[in-house]
């Protein structure tokens, strides 16, 4: 990077310098680079699902069911729109917060705290999946929603909903299992012996990504 005559923008020079490092372009531990590559590819899956949902919704000739009404909960006499979804959002954001704190404690190598916050995150994730199971049951059994049709309007609603939230719920479920495995490794002292808690941070990346996907499902499926 000695060519002062070239006057490239600063970030271009840095980008070229780091990519030309031959063997270790990213210079992070391999697990972290691999998790990021997986997450980038996963973002394409969810991005394609959301784009497909947008196309299906635009192509629908029957009116699109109002998610506010479909996912309303009754509080006494009153019908509160999207209440369950709002609670699920709060639960998932909270789990992302506890995950960040788990990673924070992992940096400081506090075994007990890390495991505690990992287990708390897994518990919140489990709560989220349980609420989603309740939501699906209600939608299928009580309201008669099916992937091919529903009594409230455009049949595309069901297929988009089951595909988007189903795939996301699968990710949360896998995440809960993953977090429990990492928590057990923390408690067994695997990361202490390895001298690095980066495994917790990598698990954190996955969990935050699940929260990230929910941000877009919440915005574009439930609120739009």
């Amino acid at each position: 990077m000695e060519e002062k005559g070239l006057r490239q923008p600063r970030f271009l020079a840095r980008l070229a310098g780091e990519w030309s490092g031959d063997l270790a372009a990213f210079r992070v531990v391999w697990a972290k680079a691999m998790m990021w590559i997986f997450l980038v590819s996963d973002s394409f899956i969810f991005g394609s699902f959301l784009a497909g949902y947008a196309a299906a919704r635009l192509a629908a000739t029957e009116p699109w069911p109002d998610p506010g009404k479909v996912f309303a909960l009754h509080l006494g006499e009153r019908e509160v729109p999207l209440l369950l979804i709002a609670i699920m959002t709060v639960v998932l954001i909270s789990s992302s917060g506890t995950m960040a704190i788990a990673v924070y404690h992992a940096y400081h190598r506090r075994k007990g705290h890390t495991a505690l916050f990992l287990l708390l995150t897994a518990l919140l994730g489990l709560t989220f999946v349980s609420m989603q199971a309740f939501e699906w049951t209600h939608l299928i059994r009580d309201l008669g929603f099916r992937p091919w049709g529903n009594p409230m309007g455009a049949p595309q609603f069901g297929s988009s909903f089951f595909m988007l939230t189903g795939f996301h719920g699968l990710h949360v479920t896998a995440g809960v299992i993953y977090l429990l495995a990492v928590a057990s490794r923390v408690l067994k002292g695997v990361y202490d012996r390895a001298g690095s808690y980066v495994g917790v941070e990598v698990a954190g990346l996955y969990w935050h990504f699940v929260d990230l996907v929910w941000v877009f499902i919440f915005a574009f499926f439930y609120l739009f």
Partner: protein
Amino acid sequence: MEGSPEIPRGEQHQPIGVYLAVWGLLFVLSALSYLLDYFKVEPIGLRRFLITAFAFLKAGLIVAYFMHLRFERVGLVYAILLPPLLLVALVAILLPEGQYVATVRRLFLGGP
């Protein structure tokens, strides 16, 4: 080549206050999005614009601070952030396609 297989980054010691502040912001932005829908803020274009803007703001906060991307090497940052931009092209293709299919369905199958 500067630095053999050294692994320096990856353990940034941010104060816990940063995480708590981001956590709080995520709650505030989610609540605002929900309220926009709850009170059916009109016009709908403005509501949808704000919901989209809040979603991307939340995504940015999660990626930058919770996933520490702000503190990674620029090579990794661009390797992660540039490829998903292809999705913009996919959306740009599929939105007119959806509208076209709707038009054709109305023309040939009837309906509203």
